[in-house]
């Protein structure tokens, strides 16, 4: 599967990364190379192989529905780039 510049632009948009024309070209080439290497995996026959999402065979890890103190409003906002009246402020969404 050859990676096109359009693919890279699409992916950059999905990932909210602003990239320049020059970068699109550069990344298309580099990512294309990497994908070529990755496609080696295609040589392996994996029919009837179950995917392994976790190296450990764990299940059912839960915690009790018990209150734990939250951060203070000040602590929550402390790293905020822009805050206003106890909220995080963000520019126009539309």
């Amino acid at each position, binding site marked *: 599967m050859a990676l096109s510049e359009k693919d890279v632009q699409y992916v950059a948009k999905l990932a909210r990364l602003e990239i320049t024309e020059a970068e699109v070209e550069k990344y298309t080439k580099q990512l294309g190379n990497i994908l070529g290497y990755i496609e080696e995996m295609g040589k392996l026959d994996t029919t009837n192989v179950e995917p392994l*999402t976790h190296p450990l065979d764990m299940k059912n890890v839960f915690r*009790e529905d018990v209150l*734990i103190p939250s951060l203070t409003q000040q602590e929550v906002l402390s790293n905020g780039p822009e805050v206003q009246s*106890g909220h995080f*402020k963000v520019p126009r*969404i539309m």
Partner: protein
Amino acid sequence: MEYEPVIGLEVHCELKTATKLFCGCSTIFGSDSNTQVCPVCLGLPGTLPVMNEKAVEYAVKIGLALNCTIAKYSKMDRKNYYYPDLPKAYQVSQNDKPLNYAGYLDIITKEGTKRIGVTRAHLEEDAGKLIHQGGKAGRLESSDYSLADYNRGGIPLVEIVSEPDIRSADEAHAYLTALRNILLYIGVSDCNMEEGSLRCDANVSVRPKGTEKFGTRTEIKNMNSFKFAKQAIEYEIKRQSALLDKGERVVQESRLWDVNESKTKTMRSKEEAHDYRYFPEPDLVPIILSEDYVNSIKKNLPELPAAKRTRFVSQYGLTEYDAGVLTSDQELADWYEEGAKHTKNPKGLSNWMMGDMAARMKEEEKELKDLKFEQKKLCELVDLIDKGTINSKQAKEVFIELFDTGKSPEAIVKDKGMVQVSDPAVIEKAVEKVLGENANVVADYKGGKQGVLGFLVGKVMQATQGKANPKLVNEILKKKLDS
């Protein structure tokens, strides 16, 4: 051209666990912004989720109450997208292995009971809240900036998706009402649409009646009450039908219900379809529920509305309709059942509850907990009527005072001297007096005008300050007149 609507509903139900889905922050509604937030639900770098066991229990309860299959193996997935109310830029939800699937819910329509399929009911976390500022007050499209509050972020939600089995706005309303009732019965949510603990979106399409192929559907959002949901769906059905009649196409899109203009409108630039890039959540492990666990939850489920309704009909001799009204609210049903213990006439009790009591409560916006009297006193009233101590007109008067003061009906009747007169001797005397004073009317009656009997009965009632037993009055009058 006649069109058949095809409707599917997606309901998001906030679970009323004490803490959030993945952390120990409080879930209480209405606190100051960003005061119920911790590093985990804020999505700070390095933090990790840990599943709330109560949320799983409540989700299974929902699945059981909706007749779903409970998955033996279930897992969480990441749904990746960008929006400022989403702290991690992904929502932890369930994609291909939901906790509950293949269920149903029965609704009562004019044509009888109809079964609406429930495709799935899965567990996920809620996002924070945004307030849009500047421009037209509170409107997203024209805002200059927005403010984010993450108190709500991370609260557990169960998303309940129906099959597209619904065929009208009325059915949709019935489904929503029945679903809400079930959720309240099993005690998993406050189901308060104003507070956002119950939200619903509708998928609506139409197709020519008699055809099989689905039409293009739109998603309707921002319906803040069941009433608006019904209106919005009705509007959308009409809108789509009109478009198709004109030979135009329905555009697949999300639309908002505009309360002020009572129409659905395109949501401007909700952009292209999201590519959510679902993949299994690596920070959580699968949920594998044993049959024992599921059975223990099933055993402890309270009696559900449908079962209660059926039982009320057989146990208390109520009509389906009456039983339906009484079981539409669990508190009301429980109130009624407590009362039914204290009377030999449960039907009578039900009539008073659904009639005068309901009317007064609605008028004064009172709830059961605001009533000044308990069930026993209402039963007293029913008994007084059944014994013949008072007549129905007197009973209405007694009820008013019962509702206003909480005084016992027996005491009210005694104090007002309202005991119904049933002594034939006393009534005979009154009848003779009235006959004597209304000779011309008597003549009319004897002349064939049977209708004037009512007038004479009324006069006797008047003469006895309304206390006479109307049945006896009728009997004695007729006897005297016919003799």
